[in-house]
């Protein structure tokens, strides 16, 4: 086996030693970062990995002392060895950032100049009411005495470096006129404005599609090589780590669990938690054994839902006599069949129409043309596209939905019993004591104690909330469940658990799933067949393994090659396939 091509380790530019950051609470101080030490070297990428709540973001913010109030650093050192960077004057100059006054001039001169930062959500991390050029120029003018005109010229040059088309006009545009990927490019341009020696990227690609993610990671890598920066990349995605890291720090509950080179962590992990994280990722990267075993016993039946020539148009015309804008074809002539007891995956980037497809099937949206034939238990066939009144109500009892966001999809003012009981109550299935008994039973099915009934959603973690959402979806004993990104908001270790729960329910209740996701590995684990969507069309349908290993369509190839592999020996990003169809 060839070793991982690690960058030549440069001198340590930033050293974090025994860092402790605390948030005072009513029950005493809460240690968000607890005795964490690591170092960043010039030209190297350090990945900080951990699940939500592990304190990785707070660590990053502690370095620049921009932790949200009332959090503050209570112990430890953050040493910036300026003499080892291009900004150094030659003399030994080491600054302990943790000692500096958080609002003072000294630390402000370092922020954005020596150490720059990129954030997760490119939409909300840039001001919506200032132009891109204004926000980039601001950093330059803040740290260097240059004229407005010069700052503008440099902003344009930076936008060109991050490959934003027509930078001369882009500089005067606002963030909401850009796509997510373009916004993140602008954000990167902003962070590079003063040639920082350290770049901290906090989940820079989490909000982006895989193809865009690959481009942004590419860009960061290229710029790192050009500028010789030390990069600290915070992520929860082991695939991203495997693609980019030279060194790795694993965090959990604010503590540093393990640190080492990419080789050490991936091929000889010491700590159980690291092993568990890696295993969870590896588990997902292949078909579920449980599913395969089940299919051997019980074959997939005939069609339950047949979608034929489905079209959904959104009228975006506006202005006088509706002459401006256009009609958006979100779904363009879709043909798909879901069979009894089958898991059908729908994969694609944001804007490909996959969510619209799910919503049409539940008649949240009324389709423009085409039919969706639903075969009920008795053998009767109804067209979901045109059903109304009682007919639609009956179909809606049989086709249910699980939502993406376990936080937003549960009403915070209703307790769990009310949330799960609502469909039963609305459809007049049960009430009173019978309703409570049924809710308790449903909670048991999804692995939650009956005592959960009286509590409100905020008392539960993300994974538990998603279980509540699942209990609500199966309350009416449906036959088809549309799961729209049902595991995207969950940590990796929870994903397999939730998917296994869904498989178990499938066995017990004879469910068929339409599983919408942008995440290939989840699809591979869970789905028997997969449909690949691109700009409103299904470009490829087939057995999941077949599509994953031998994709036929150019877009599928591009999508698959953009997925970061959780194996640092198979870094595939640079050799990835690109696909761009003409509009």
């Amino acid at each position, binding site marked *: 086996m060839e070793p991982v091509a690690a960058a030549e380790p440069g001198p340590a530019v930033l050293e974090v030693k025994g860092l402790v950051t605390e948030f005072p609470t009513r029950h005493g101080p809460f240690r968000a970062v607890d005795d964490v030490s690591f170092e960043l070297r010039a030209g190297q990428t350090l990945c900080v990995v951990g699940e939500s709540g592990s304190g990785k973001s707070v660590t990053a*913010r502690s370095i*620049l002392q*921009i932790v*949200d109030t009332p959090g503050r650093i209570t112990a430890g050192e953050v040493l910036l060895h300026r003499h080892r960077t291009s900004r150094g004057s030659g003399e030994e100059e080491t600054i302990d950032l943790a000692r500096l006054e958080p*609002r003072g001039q000294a630390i*402000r*001169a*370092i*922020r*954005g*100049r020596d150490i*720059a*930062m990129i*954030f*997760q*959500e490119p939409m*909300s*991390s*840039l*001001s*919506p*009411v*200032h132009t891109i050029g204004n926000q980039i120029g*601001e*950093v330059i003018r*803040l*740290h260097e005495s240059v004229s407005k005109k010069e700052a503008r010229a440099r902003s344009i040059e930076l936008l060109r470096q991050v490959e934003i088309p027509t930078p001369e006009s882009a500089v005067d545009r*606002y963030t*909401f*006129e850009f796509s997510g990927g373009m916004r993140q490019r602008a*954000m990167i341009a*902003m962070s590079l404005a003063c040639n920082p020696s350290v770049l901290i990227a906090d989940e820079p690609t989490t909000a982006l599609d895989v193809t865009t993610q690959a481009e942004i990671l590419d860009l960061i890598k290229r710029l790192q090589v050009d500028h010789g920066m030390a990069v600290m990349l915070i992520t929860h995605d082991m695939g991203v780590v495997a693609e980019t890291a030279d060194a790795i720090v694993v965090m959990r509950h604010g503590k540093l669990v393990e640190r080492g080179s990419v080789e050490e962590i991936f091929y000889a992990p010491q700590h159980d938690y690291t092993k568990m994280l890696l295993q969870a990722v590896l588990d997902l990267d292949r078909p579920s054994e449980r599913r395969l075993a089940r299919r051997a016993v019980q074959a997939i039946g005939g069609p339950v839902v047949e979608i034929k020539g489905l079209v959904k148009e959104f009228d975006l015309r506006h202005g006088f006599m509706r002459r401006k804008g256009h009609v958006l074809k979100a779904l363009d002539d879709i043909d798909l069949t879901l069979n009894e007891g089958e898991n059908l995956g729908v994969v694609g980037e944001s804007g490909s129409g996959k969510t619209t497809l799910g919503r049409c099937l539940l008649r949240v949206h009324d389709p423009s043309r085409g039919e969706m034939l639903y075969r009920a238990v008795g053998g009767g066939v109804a067209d979901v596209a045109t059903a109304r009144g009682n007919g639609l109500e009956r179909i809606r009892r049989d086709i249910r939905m699980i939502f993406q966001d376990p936080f937003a999809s549960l009403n915070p003012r209703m307790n769990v019993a009310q949330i799960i009981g609502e469909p039963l109550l609305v459809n007049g299935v049960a009430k009173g004591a019978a309703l409570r008994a049924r809710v308790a039973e449903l909670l048991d099915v999804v692995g939650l104690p009956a005592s959960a009934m009286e509590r409100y959603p905020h008392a539960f973690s993300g994974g538990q909330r998603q279980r509540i959402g699942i209990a609500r979806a199966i309350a009416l004993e449906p036959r088809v469940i549309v799961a729209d990104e049902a595991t995207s908001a969950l940590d990796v270790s929870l994903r397999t658990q939730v998917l296994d729960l869904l498989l178990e329910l499938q066995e017990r209740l004879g469910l068929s799933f339409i599983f919408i996701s942008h995440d290939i590995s989840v699809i591979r684990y869970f789905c028997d067949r997969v449909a690949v969507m691109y700009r409103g069309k299904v470009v490829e349908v087939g057995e999941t393994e077949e599509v994953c290993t031998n994709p036929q369509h150019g877009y599928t190839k591009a999508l698959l090659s953009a997925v970061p592999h959780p194996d640092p020996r198979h870094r595939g990003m640079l050799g990835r396939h690109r696909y761009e169809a003409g509009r």
Partner: protein
Amino acid sequence: MLLTYIIKRILWTIPFLFAVSIVAFALIQAPPGDYLTTFAATLAQSGDMVDQERLEALRTRYGLDQPFIVQYWKWISGVLVGDFGISFEWQQPVSNLIWERMALSLCLAVSTLLFTWAVAFPIGIYSAVRKYSIGDYVVTTIGFLGLAMPNFLLALVLMYIGVVYFGADVGGLFSPEYQTAPWSWAKVVDLGKHIWIPVVILGTSSSAALIRIMRANLLDELNKPYVTTARAKGLSEFRLLLKYPVRLALNPFVSTIGWAFPQLISGAVITAFVLSLPTAGPLLLQALLAQDMYLAGAFILLLCTLTVVGMLVSDILLALLDPRIRYR
């Protein structure tokens, strides 16, 4: 883009003003009877008998027996060329009566609005940034007092304090020697000496409301990710605050012009009575009581127009301030 928006917005006010004029006219016609019935009733109260035939003759002369639409047409076609009709009660053209009072009302409203902003803006920012500090609590308490206290009460209290402790001349907007004098620089100075009392009185409750709005808006913005981004750039806290969160919190602040303006003008009536200010409010009330149709109509129409213009100004300011509105 911006210009089209503004032109479009201005054009929209034309049909809107037309609708407003109909509603205004319908409103002053709404009470049963007309000026002459009220006139007859007043005479009857004082023991005079009115000759029915004379009333009918007057009614025909004033056109009060004609249908609504005809009366409206007569009125509005006059208004368009600047003729607001004749006040029954004062027996002189309405335009002679209203302009000075409207101008003073407008002057009072604008000064109050400026005062309100000058007070609410810095205090609102302070109490958001120093949330739950002693200063915040003090300001909040004063704010609630200002909100809860009726304007006329504050007017009485201030008048008392003004007269007893400062010996100031507190009624009206002018000293007696300037009341009927033609406009001059000295009269303007005299106005300045008097106007602050009503400005403070009227401004207190609306600044209290605005402080709360500013504080709430800013608190929402202060923890947004773009603030962290700006901090990570190395901006100082003060510059950062003014450039990013305050700028975004201003949106609802500017929208308040739309509602604060008419509120100031109509809310000023009672205060104007208490302080005997020569503004539009008291005269409007009198005209309404007497069913002096054309006088009341002119006032209501002008007040509505001011409101519409206030909305227009706030919309245009919003578009200037927030590009997202322009592009929608």
